[in-house]
């Protein structure tokens, strides 16, 4: 068989490119990080398969956080932004038809969550979650408001930079990823102990979305671009027949 396929095992995770699990500056990680090494093994069908979600899952406003919690059509308060990008894999190919979910604080830096009692007010028209499914080229987009920075209990005066949480599935359970998008130019990124759990600056920079005026709409919204790369699968030429290998 001469054609390559991407149905080989998942490419092993390069753990050094990810945040360290244990970081004393991020205090909650101290009791919640495993001490013993992870058990490394080549992927199996349990990791190579995964849930698929169809476009029928989506409602018309699911990727519009400005309107999807509004009761009367009034828009959420804040700077209107378009967040857009592509989901790719490590083989630099698009990941089509995969679910992308986001959640975030409102423009004042407050989450609509029972545990968040920050002084900033809730916006009655802003829930803070959205979801979409990538198109055939792996593209996605959300219309939302720019979230505010907020203080959090860690060291005496820690603040989270403006950020949007992102969850992506891919097509294999072993590709599952949750990360955060930061905004170009935010001075709080360099002071954030959560951002600093990523030790290579070049890796942290990959989470900082640039302003993208090519997608900004005049008199309406600014745009930020955020591409996401998921684990790939080894392309194989020789492994299509499992027997005898």
């Amino acid at each position: 068989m001469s054609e390559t396929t991407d149905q080989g095992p998942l490419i092993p995770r390069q753990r050094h490119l990810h945040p360290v699990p244990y970081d004393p500056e991020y205090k909650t990680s101290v009791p919640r990080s495993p001490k013993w090494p992870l058990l490394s093994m080549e992927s199996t069908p349990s990791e190579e398969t995964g849930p698929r979600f169809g476009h029928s899952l989506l409602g018309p406003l699911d990727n519009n956080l400005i309107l999807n919690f509004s009761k009367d059509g009034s828009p959420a308060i804040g700077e209107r932004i378009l967040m857009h990008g592509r989901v790719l894999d490590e083989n630099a190919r698009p990941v089509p038809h995969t679910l992308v979910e986001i959640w975030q604080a409102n423009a004042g830096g407050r989450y609509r969550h029972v545990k968040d009692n920050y002084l900033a007010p809730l916006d009655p028209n802003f829930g803070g979650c959205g979801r979409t499914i990538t198109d055939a080229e792996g593209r996605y987009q959300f219309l939302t408001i720019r979230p505010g920075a907020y203080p959090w209990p860690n060291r005496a005066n820690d603040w989270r930079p403006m950020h949007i949480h992102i969850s992506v599935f891919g097509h294999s359970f072993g590709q599952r990823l949750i990360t955060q998008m930061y905004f170009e130019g935010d001075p709080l990124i360099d002071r954030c102990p959560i951002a600093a759990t990523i030790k290579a600056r070049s890796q942290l920079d990959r989470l900082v979305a640039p302003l993208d005026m090519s997608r900004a709409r005049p008199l309406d919204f600014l745009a930020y671009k955020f591409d996401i790369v998921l684990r790939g699968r080894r392309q194989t030429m020789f492994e299509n027949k499992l027997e005898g290998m």
Partner: protein
Amino acid sequence: MVQSLETLTETPSQTAGPYVHIGCIPSFAGLPGVYPEDLGLSPIAEGAKGQIITITGAVIDGTGWALRDAMMESWQPDAAGLFAGQAGADPAVSGFCRFAADKDSGLFTLRTVKPGAVRHRSGAMQAPHISLWIVARGINIGLSTRIYFEDEDNSADPLLARIEQRPRVETLIAKRTGEGQYRFDIRLQGEGETVFLDI
């Protein structure tokens, strides 16, 4: 200099944070109505073939405290060992579930069908198991592990065989507490630390 590779590397993870429920299970988080229902409410629909089981447990930190904010996802095949989308798979088994620790007790419950065995690439059979992915504040990259079952033959499972310290195998095995009832605790750190996977 050498030629450049045309490959990319994975985007780095960040913690899901304390408010992961807003994004992933908004109705559970008290934001009903954004979506008709939370994603992955159940891995099975009415009529799923096989034994219905309930797994209860907690995610426990290094101090012995059960996390109240953990969110988990499970992925598994049907009772015959087929994953959703594969030819012949039980249409009543999506195999995917999202569930969270109770905000007061820290306990979670997963109600599903007992999965069938799945063949490994090597040809060996893997003992029945459910894949589990755990995220929470303080967990900087999601933790992967597996739930195996005390009342199954786990002796030839290729993953369990890789665990050098044999007592640690027990951390991946759900204990039977009654008919169709199991207990499975996840210890993030300290005595009895669960075996987490890089797979």
